[in-house]
């Protein structure tokens, strides 16, 4: 019976209820979306950075080099001679060096020339076929394969520069797809991987035709893992000061990027908190005005024998109903928005967001809202407690 009373009271003034719920939904939805994007962005960035202590490439913007080499967004800063990388790999502080050769595309997806170590770093597994072993064999990331309907055994033609940049196709040489990778949350989901030799062969073959001159072998960059922390402390500075190469520490560059984007996210977060506050005020005002209207009904229920505790419970539950509906709808809104972001690829193309897990920060927001809702019931409860039944019933 009390449940029915609470439900009917909540629906008694539907416009007020809808307004409060919309405000709650927006506040919770926006803050939850920001938390999800921020958390998952950091998680994914950190995942892609595993085992990469330093990147070495051509001089230019270190952030651009990190973004292009690790996350496969933005253009590379240039090329560097392989012999420099080989020299670096023999340094006692260096444990592992993975060369990266970029610049070629299949349609809009990147083709990365590298070694088997690159696939191992991301724990890549083959879903169909096998890993590429010979020149002009290629494995395709799961997302890329689905995007272009690519299958094992098909041949693809690469181009220098992506399709949007009026690229130049390497028509003389084609790649044989030997494998499709299993889906993963890492960057390799959206790219094609071949050997560095394949990239060299394609370019060398074309240059032979055009210029017939011998060129030294080059790659775009190299991912370096150090043997000891001394490497991080000494090598980047030494490389930047004494060679024609550029060294960058990815974690530092990414933190700089997150600091900049973090300002925007924080502003949005505060706007969301402001909306939640407005929702709380709206509910509080609705409750106070309803309390004035229902003063006689409350006195009536007291005269029928309802204890103060029952009436407090009714007051609190009514507010919590609005709050709960707002929280549920807000959480759904943030998840649907994230699905939309993924579907439309407004987000960084190589990053997909995992929708349905609830984050610690979201729980903090939810419990804070519930706490504030309960706090806002103090005044109505005080009014109910003070109510003079006889006076209220006799005066109305």
């Amino acid at each position, binding site marked *: 019976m009390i449940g029915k009373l609470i439900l009917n009271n909540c629906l008694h003034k539907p416009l007020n209820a809808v307004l409060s719920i919309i405000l709650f939904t927006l506040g919770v939805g926006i803050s939850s979306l920001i938390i999800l994007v921020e958390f998952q962005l950091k998680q994914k960035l950190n995942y892609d950075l595993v085992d990469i202590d330093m990147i070495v490439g051509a001089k230019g913007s270190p952030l651009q080099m990190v973004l292009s080499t690790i996350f496969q967004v933005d253009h590379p800063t240039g090329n560097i001679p392989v012999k420099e990388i080989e020299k670096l790999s023999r340094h006692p502080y260096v444990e592992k060096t993975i060369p990266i050769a970029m610049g070629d595309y299949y349609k809009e997806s990147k083709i990365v020339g590298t070694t088997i170590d690159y696939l191992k770093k991301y724990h890549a597994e083959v879903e169909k076929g096998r890993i590429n072993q010979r020149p002009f064999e290629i494995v395709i990331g799961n997302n890329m394969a689905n995007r272009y309907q690519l299958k094992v055994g098909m041949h693809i033609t690469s181009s220098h520069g992506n399709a949007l940049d009026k690229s130049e196709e390497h028509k003389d040489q084609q790649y044989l797809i030997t494998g499709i990778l299993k889906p993963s949350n890492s960057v390799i989901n959206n790219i094609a991987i071949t050997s560095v030799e394949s990239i060299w062969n394609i370019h060398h073959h074309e240059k032979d035709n055009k210029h017939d001159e011998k060129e030294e072998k080059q790659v775009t960059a190299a991912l370096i893992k150090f043997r000891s922390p001394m490497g991080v402390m000494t090598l980047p500075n030494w490389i930047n000061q004494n060679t024609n190469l550029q060294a960058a520490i990815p974690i530092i560059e990414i933190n700089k990027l997150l600091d900049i984007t973090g300002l925007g996210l924080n502003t949005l977060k505060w706007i969301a908190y402001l909306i939640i506050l407005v929702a709380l005020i709206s509910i509080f005002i609705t409750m106070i005005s309803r309390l004035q209207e229902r003063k006689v009904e409350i006195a*009536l229920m007291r*005269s029928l024998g309802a*204890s103060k505790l029952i009436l407090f419970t009714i007051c609190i539950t009514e507010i919590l109903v609005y709050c709960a509906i707002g929280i549920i709808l807000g959480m759904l809104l943030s998840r649907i928005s994230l699905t939309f972001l993924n579907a439309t690829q407004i987000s960084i193309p190589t990053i997909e967001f995992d929708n349905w897990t609830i984050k610690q920060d979201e729980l903090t927001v939810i419990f804070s809202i519930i706490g504030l809702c309960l706090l806002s019931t103090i005044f109505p409860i005080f009014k109910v407690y003070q109510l003079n039944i*006889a006076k209220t019933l*006799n005066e109305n």
Partner: protein
Amino acid sequence: MLLAEDIQFQYPNTKKLSYPTIQCTSQIPLLITGESGCGKTTLLSIPGGLITNYKGNVMIDGTNLSSLTKTKLDRFRADYIGIIHQKPFFVSSLNMKENIALAAYFGNVQEKNTDVTKQLFDQLKVEHLLFKKPTELSSGEIQRFSIIRAICKNAKLVLADEPTSSLDNQNALQVIQLLNQLCLDKGIALIIVSHDTRLTKSYSHQINLLK
């Protein structure tokens, strides 16, 4: 059933109200009359447990009301007392059936008294009005629901405050006949306060309050 002795009450900045001894037994209704402002409604609020800061003794079925804590008084009111207010207040978001069920719920009798309530609906000819909201009913119809609400929870004492003041002659007569009959049938002690002269002929046991 009810004995109220030496009752005195004073609202802030007003004259003190002193009442004669009030005694009421089941099946013999008591009519309390008096001019407006003589304290009739206040008197009814005291045995109803709605006013607690009075002087004097109120015994209902052997229980001294002033000896009860606030929580126990709430429970006592729910279990023993049915009140018919001058203005028939109902919860506006609930229909009439739900309003009656709410009163029964607070009186803890919804299970055992279902049949009694159905009988009352039938007896007072309100079955076709059960799913209407309070604002959709006429004064006569809503006063009948007030009576059902007061009686449905097996109240031992029913306190009616001006139950006929807003009714025409025909409805007033009907309401009084219903109240008297129900009190006789169910052995309820009934106290009516009213300044409605139409009622004086219907009651042998009367007290007139002086201003």
